[in-house]
């Protein structure tokens, strides 16, 4: 009888101890279930992150207007983990880029009219996309490569400035942005990380005045990521 009582007491103590351990861990994330990857995690179980990137882009369409690459751009976004697998992350990006090119003085003739001037060609590009990223490695790793797709809307303003005069045209379009990159932490499961990624943007924006049938570009972004939970 004593043995049975002792066995029961030890079992209860063991279960209580397990529960205590369980609730200790859950105190950090009380509403979360532990998945197979997050079980092995040390430290915070990050389930979202924010980033701000410096974006460099090369235009691919209508290079007669602007062919020069742009280093005047940024991307701002966030991601939220979709499930405990740590692989699918969903979020949104806001992108801003300015392309510009100087055309030295030239004479342009249209029929009986001729105009001589130097030109400053500008394209202002704004984009807002919903994104889905697939991370190939658990987020706690130092290096976490990913591939993603963004779908959303793009707003372009094409402008030409000469002397005190100018003209512009604006356009909204549908945006598709495949992207591949990597997050690099400063240590395992780092709260701050570097983001480096290549992306291709295609948007259906058109401008008959400036000769755009669409607007596409290749870009490289590098920025800072803040992990959150």
């Amino acid at each position, binding site marked *: 009888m004593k043995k049975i009582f002792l066995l029961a007491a030890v079992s209860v103590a063991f279960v209580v101890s397990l529960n205590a351990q369980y609730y200790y861990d859950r105190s950090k994330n009380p509403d979360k279930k532990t998945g197979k990857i997050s079980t092995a995690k040390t430290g915070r179980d990050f389930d979202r992150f924010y980033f701000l990137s410096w974006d460099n882009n090369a235009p691919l369409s209508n290079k007669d207007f602007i062919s020069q690459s742009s280093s005047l751009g940024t991307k701002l976004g966030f991601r939220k983990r979709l499930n405990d697998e740590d692989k699918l992350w969903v979020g949104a990006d806001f992108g801003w880029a300015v392309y510009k090119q100087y055309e030295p003085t030239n004479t342009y003739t249209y029929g009986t009219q001729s105009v001589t*001037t130097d030109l400053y060609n500008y394209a202002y590009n704004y984009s807002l996309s919903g994104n889905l990223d697939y991370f190939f490695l658990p987020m706690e790793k130092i290096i976490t490569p990913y591939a993603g797709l963004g779908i959303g809307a793009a707003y372009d303003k094409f402008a030409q400035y000469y002397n*005190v005069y100018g003209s512009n045209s604006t356009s909204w379009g549908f945006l598709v942005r495949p992207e591949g990159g990597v997050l690099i932490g400063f240590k395992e499961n780092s709260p701050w990380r570097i983001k480096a990624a290549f992306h291709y943007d295609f948007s259906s924006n058109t401008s008959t005045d400036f000769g755009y049938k669409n607007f596409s570009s290749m870009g490289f972004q590098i920025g800072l990521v803040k992990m959150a939970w």
Partner: protein
Amino acid sequence: MKIIRMKKGFVIVIVSVLFLWACEPKPNGSDLVKKMVVSTDYNSSANFTSYSTYTMVLDTISYFDNSDPNPADTSAIGSEIHDITNKVKNKMDSAGYSLVNEKLADLWVYIYVNQVYSAYQSYYYNPYSYGYYGSYYPTVSVTDLADLYIYIVDLKHKTSGPYLWACDIGDLVSSQDQTSATILQAIDQAFKQSPYIKK
């Protein structure tokens, strides 16, 4: 605490987006106005070789300023004006035309400056200003532009159209060059891009 953190992040993102959306860098203003824009047009039915002589005023050009309270004040004189008329005269001479009395001339070369000054005042309502109902505040936007026009008019066949050749050079107001050098370069360019003006 988590909700507060999320809201804070969301607000930062929204503010950043609005800031960037409003950010449209433009070319440097002083670079833009280094050179004037030179536009020319001609009557496609004109045969410039059929003319031999021209007339023009050498000591003055017409000057129209919509902000000038005296509407009769429409002439500009001075050494810079003389430089401009001389430059045009030299170009016409080089093209093979001879300056003659207006009664004998085939062509009339007319030069004038048109300055348009406009100030637009509007009011916006600030509901948070001092006072119970807020206040209206004025904003003023000013535009001041001036162009130099050169016209060649057919005096032999006055029904052939309003002009044989028209030239528009601007903007004179924003030019950083306080001499007439930039205008003289622009006049050179106007005749250079109009090789059909020749006897």
